[in-house]
């Protein structure tokens, strides 16, 4: 099912994401997804996330789809030029993948192949535009496709707590112009900033899903603060994780914080995107606690 159908009915869209393994045995991941994520609208499959080489996003999407889940095919512009991206989009259509998420992608230098050539022939905006062209039956070279053109629900990302918020909003507008139909945000830990962002972003008239990361530990939060762009975990939350070591270790504090953030922000947006990062098993608890 295309996410756009659900958004247009005014229904809340809940998504989460899985990262393919560094190997080709996808079964454990699919089993886990079936167990914990079956009730969720759709599941993002990351594309060599953080520039770390893994099993392909499209192949993993097909495995999830065969298991009855609704995958969102993430595409980054780091590893493929426009021809490879267009060709993979046609492959996705052939496999019946309906939802995609277009990203620029992290630089190769940040990952496990720092010597690899960073491609960036296209970027998130021009990739969205490219998908729109394919949907019209022409490729970027101006050549006609044979037969029925593909049709996707096209998503993009935005970073609402970024310290470059104006530049981010300008980019968001370009993505909307290029055909983005929904947005998932970078992880939010500061509801005030998110609400202020939504106040400006709502003018684009495109649904936005609040992004959340489950805070697993104090160390993880410190790591996010030091290294991840657009993410800031405030001291109060870190103190909350420190306060009850046992509860934090068991994941209960992280689940509580995540559910609370969702409750605070949900009135201002159209859905939630939970980045569980290995804690897929906690997703049902979060949704229950957030009242979803």
């Amino acid at each position, binding site marked *: 099912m295309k996410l756009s159908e659900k958004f247009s009915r005014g229904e809340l869209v809940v998504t989460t994401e899985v990262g393919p393994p560094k190997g080709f045995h996808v079964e454990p991941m699919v089993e886990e997804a079936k167990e914990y994520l079956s009730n969720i609208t759709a599941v993002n499959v990351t594309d060599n996330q953080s520039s770390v080489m893994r099993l392909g996003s499209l192949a993993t999407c097909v495995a999830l789809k065969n298991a009855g889940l609704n995958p969102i095919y993430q595409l980054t512009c780091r590893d493929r030029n*426009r021809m490879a991206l267009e060709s993979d989009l046609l492959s996705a259509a052939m496999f019946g993948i309906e939802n995609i998420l277009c990203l620029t992608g992290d*630089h190769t230098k940040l990952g496990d192949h720092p010597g690899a050539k960073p491609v960036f022939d296209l970027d*998130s905006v021009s990739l969205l*535009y490219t998908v729109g062209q394919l949907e019209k039956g022409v490729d970027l070279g101006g050549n006609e496709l044979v037969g029925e053109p593909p049709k996707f629900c096209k998503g993009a990302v935005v970073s609402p707590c*970024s310290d*470059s918020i*104006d530049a*981010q909003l300008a980019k968001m507008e*370009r993505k909307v112009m290029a055909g983005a139909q929904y947005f998932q945000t970078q992880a939010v830990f500061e509801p005030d900033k998110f609400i202020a962002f939504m106040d400006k972003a709502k003018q684009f008239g495109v649904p936005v899903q609040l992004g959340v990361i489950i805070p697993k530990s104090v160390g993880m939060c410190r790591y996010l603060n030091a290294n991840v762009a657009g993410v800031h975990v405030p001291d109060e939350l870190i103190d909350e994780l420190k306060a009850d070591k046992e509860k934090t270790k068991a994941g209960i504090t992280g689940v509580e914080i995540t559910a609370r953030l969702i409750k605070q922000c949900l009135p201002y947006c159209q859905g939630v995107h939970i980045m569980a990062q290995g804690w897929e098993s906690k997703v049902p608890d979060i949704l229950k606690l957030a009242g979803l």
Partner: protein
Amino acid sequence: MLITELKSRETIEALLTGKVFIINCHGCKEVHFPEKEAEALQKELTGRGIVTGIMTTDYICNPENMKLRLKKHMSEIAMADMVLVFSCGVGVQTVAEYLENKKVCAACDTYPLPGYQGVTPLEHKCDQCGECFLNITGGICPLTACSKSLVNGQCGGAKAGKCEVDPDMECGWERIYRRLKQVGRLDVLKCPVQIRNYATDKEV
């Protein structure tokens, strides 16, 4: 060598707003400059009465040299709504940085040719992409100032204004956004989707 070529007539017309001050750089002998075409165009613009002044000089990529030459023309520049620069990409970037409150536009595209690249100072770089983007980026080259050479805006990787690849480097798109805001040209960010053309290498 590199070669500069005039942008198309429509492109240049679309850039014009109000009165114009023109800068020609006939600097390095390593750069081929479209002298005749530029002259014809400038004559026409002068005929239309929109030119406040023309300065023809060399090495505008050298900031000290450029500032010195511009001094004599400051009143003409003040009268103009924009400055149109006929030079390689480095020259345009140098002028745009110095005249930080003026709309500074590139009238040329810069292509590479095999051979010696001429003398350019280190502050500004031009990759001779053949389809100069400086007019939609406030005169800051997106190909050399952004680690991913993005032409449609900032990626999600900037942290505290610094680039995700190099924390010592200011994010190029952060700089571009700031400059566009400063010169009141944020509207150019609503321009059509940009897609690089890698087939621009000119064989002579």
